[in-house]
């Protein structure tokens, strides 16, 4: 069955390196080099020995086809594998053959021809303790090696490798016919001009002849010395398969690799030459091994914060996700990837950089939905954000057309976070839009991203249904977006709503710039949701340049835009990861940032990175160091925004209910609450509950009252002191997810 493009099975992580495919022995060069790089000559020699069978012969004869495949050949010279193999052999602690402690197999196998291919096959089968008989028509070992190497080199290597194995060697015996040979399997390796006993190659398996149990290979099949030895080593597997399972269908050898390597990533480094002109010293060998690129596809892990943090490739992630969403036990134990699934920022960079377009983020989002549907996702991870969304779509929401207009060409959709950051971002922008398009409608609500990221399809669909209805009632206007995430989410689920970015309109219409910053250098930080929006990326740069900024590029931007850490709302589920992402992002550019997502702006500013929102520059609102509002202030800002727009644009006196409690919270404590995802309105509810029920605990040493109350799932604790004027001084507050089963 043909797989969908971008399936995880297409991942190139395990594709062989170019050199390995070119090598007749398919030596795992990455593994060999890794050992050489750390000076593990003995281990490297074992890898080499296991691959080639006769190391001295192969080192002497190998024409190094790997060199033609090595990407380093274009940047300093191909890796000198032969010199490295020599070094491994020279500096290995122990070059004795391995003694295999395996019981005798009680199966007789025959090899016809004692050339390099036949001997290689004999060696492997003898190591596996088959009863091996080698027939050779001449009186000597080595076959065609006598024409290409001095006998002392190859004979000593053959003797050494067979040192611990027993083989029945029958010299001066020419086999005229296979009839009457009583063996479980036979390898015909009679050399370049040898007999094939009238057998043809069978296409159904490697080395298979048309006669079951008889295999053909080596120079008989037109192979050179290296390929002949490699064939001898490999045919032993085909013969064993036949003996055990009866099939001749041994798989063919690897013939290619789908690996691709971005040449731009390769920095030049010259070949290390042996100082004595012949062989490497240990240090030279380690240096040369260090030049190896160990070619593999790791684009995702290099670019994706999540894969780098967890040190996991997509295949491994897919496996862990599978056992997490389909755990093997009834109580759901073994859900190993819950935290990983909940940590993805859903920025899409993994798919962008993957040569196979594998969407690992999409896999994680689908898994998140499955977990959510099963009730297996801890509620705490998205509880705050879903309640925040409910507030934005409830008390703070608004959908209005300007008075006197029956339909609208444009609908301003600022999103719920822009006004929460600073209500003026929305009021000033809306005023600009009304100046140019007086029928522009306004919608204050959430796009549904929190529900999307929480995997809560029901909540997302409900929010979008309402949004769609309002849009339809307004005459299906074109949406004016300020937030790339809103644009992305609505584009995904309500593609019928056409959209444009506020910044494009500002650029088109021109605006008198209150903030001019001639010569100030800054970097535009593209929000991850702008990845597929080159137009807005360019518009914001044009606006910044018009304002006098010199723009310095960031290492990754545009198509490779990265997440500020807000995406996926992972900060509750995985605080250390979110902090790591922010710290990484703000360190990537030395200049202040300009963003066009208020979440990026506020997160960077909270972490100490000067950052403007492009509207700060266009509308002359704030400097780059403005401290972002706390979570409580954000909620209040949304309500303030709603009241202000009703007053200014609809001449209605908005109701901004008096706070139900006069709660005194120091700025420091307010920030602490915000950092711990606690709202002061929740704290007021807890104090109210304590005061009403009288369930309070007095600390006589401080005069503080302690009390607690559960709101939905969360349990909140307060430490407070009532004041004589009826207000309450909050001294501390904290919460926990665990529920107290009180009597």
């Amino acid at each position, binding site marked *: 069955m043909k797989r969908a493009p971008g399936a995880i099975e297409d991942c190139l992580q395990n594709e062989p390196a170019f050199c390995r495919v070119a090598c007749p022995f398919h030596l795992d060069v990455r593994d060999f080099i890794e050992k050489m790089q750390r000076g593990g000559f003995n281990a490297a020699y074992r890898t080499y020995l296991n691959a080639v069978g006769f190391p001295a012969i192969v080192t002497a004869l190998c024409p190094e086809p790997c060199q033609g495949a090595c990407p380093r050949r274009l940047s300093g010279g191909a890796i000198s594998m032969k010199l490295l193999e020599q070094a491994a052999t020279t500096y290995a602690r122990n070059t004795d053959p391995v003694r295999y402690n395996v019981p005798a197999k009680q199966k007789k196998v025959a090899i016809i021809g004692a050339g390099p291919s036949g001997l290689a096959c004999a060696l492997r089968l003898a190591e596996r303790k088959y009863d091996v008989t080698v027939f050779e028509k001449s009186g000597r070992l080595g076959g065609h090696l006598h024409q290409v190497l001095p006998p002392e080199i190859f004979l000593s290597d053959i003797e050494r490798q067979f040192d611990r194995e027993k083989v029945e060697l029958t010299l001066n015996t020419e086999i005229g016919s296979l009839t009457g040979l009583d063996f479980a399997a036979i390898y015909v390796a009679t050399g370049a001009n040898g007999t094939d006993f009238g057998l043809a190659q069978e296409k159904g398996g490697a080395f298979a002849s048309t006669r079951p149990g008889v295999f053909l290979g080596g120079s008989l099949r037109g192979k050179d010395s290296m390929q002949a030895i490699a064939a001898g080593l490999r045919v032993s597997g085909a013969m064993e398969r036949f003996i055990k399972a009866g099939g001749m269908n041994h798989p063919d050898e690897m013939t290619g690799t789908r690996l691709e390597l971005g040449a731009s990533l390769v920095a030049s480094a010259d070949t290390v030459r042996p100082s004595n002109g012949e062989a490497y010293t240990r240090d030279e060998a380690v240096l040369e091994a260090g030049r190896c690129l160990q070619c593999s596809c790791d684009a995702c892990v290099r670019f994706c914060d999540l894969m780098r943090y967890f040190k996991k490739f997509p295949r491994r992630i897919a496996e862990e996700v599978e056992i997490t969403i389909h755990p093997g036990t009834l109580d759901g134990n073994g859900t*190993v990837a819950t935290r990983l699934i909940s940590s993805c920022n859903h920025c899409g960079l993994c798919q962008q950089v993957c040569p196979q377009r594998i969407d690992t983020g999409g896999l994680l989002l689908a898994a998140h939905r499955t977990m959510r549907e099963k009730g297996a996702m801890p509620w705490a991870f998205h509880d705050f954000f879903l309640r925040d969304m409910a507030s934005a779509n409830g008390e703070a929401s608004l959908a209005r057309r300007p008075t006197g207009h029956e339909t609208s060409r444009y609908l301003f959709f600022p999103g719920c976070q822009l006004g929460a950051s600073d209500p003026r971002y929305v009021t000033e922008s809306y005023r600009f839009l009304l100046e140019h398009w007086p029928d522009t409608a306004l919608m204050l609500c959430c796009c549904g991203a929190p529900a999307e990221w929480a995997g809560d399809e029901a909540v997302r669909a409900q929010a979008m249904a309402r949004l769609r209805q309002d849009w339809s009632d307004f005459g299906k206007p074109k949406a004016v977006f300020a937030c790339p995430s809103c644009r992305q989410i609505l584009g995904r689920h309500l593609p019928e709503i056409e959209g444009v970015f506020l910044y494009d309109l500002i650029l088109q219409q021109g605006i008198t710039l209150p903030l001019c910053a001639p010569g100030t250098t800054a970097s535009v930080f593209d929000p991850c949701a702008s990845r597929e929006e080159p137009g807005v990326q360019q518009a914001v740069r044009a606006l910044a340049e018009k304002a006098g900024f010199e723009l310095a590029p960031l290492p990754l931007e545009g198509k490779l835009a990265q997440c500020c850490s807000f995406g996926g709302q992972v900060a509750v589920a995985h605080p250390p990861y979110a902090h790591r992402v922010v710290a990484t992002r703000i360190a990537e550019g030395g200049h202040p940032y300009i963003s066009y997502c208020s979440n990026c702006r506020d997160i960077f500013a909270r972490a100490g990175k000067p950052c403007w929102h492009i509207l700060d520059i266009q509308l002359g609102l704030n400097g780059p160091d403005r401290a972002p509002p706390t979570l409580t202030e954000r909620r209040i800002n949304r309500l303030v925004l709603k009241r202000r727009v009703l007053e200014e644009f609809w001449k209605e006196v908005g109701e901004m209910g008096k706070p139900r409690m006069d709660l005194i919270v120091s700025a420091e404590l307010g920030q602490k609450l915000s950092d711990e995802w606690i709202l002061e309105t929740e704290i007021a509810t807890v104090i109210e509950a304590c005061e009403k029920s009288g*369930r309070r*605990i*007095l600390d006589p040493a401080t005069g503080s009252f*302690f009390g607690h109350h559960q709101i939905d799932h969360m349990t909140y604790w307060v430490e407070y002191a009532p004041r004589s004027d009826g207000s309450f001084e909050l001294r501390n507050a904290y919460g926990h997810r*665990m529920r*107290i089963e009180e009597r």
Partner: protein
Amino acid sequence: MPEQRVLICQQCQKALEPRKTDFTYLGHSFFTDILTCPGCGQVFIPEELAKGRISEVEKQLEDK
């Protein structure tokens, strides 16, 4: 030691003392000794406990 401080239940005017208290999270139940009013059963969890052991157990259960 935070456990050493005397805390008074305002309802019962009694000093809290450690008693077995049950907790649940994500379908798992367990118990530990928590300062509790011997009269009405009102409990007290200090911030150190909430941020320390309780938070650790929460994480373990989320990752289980």
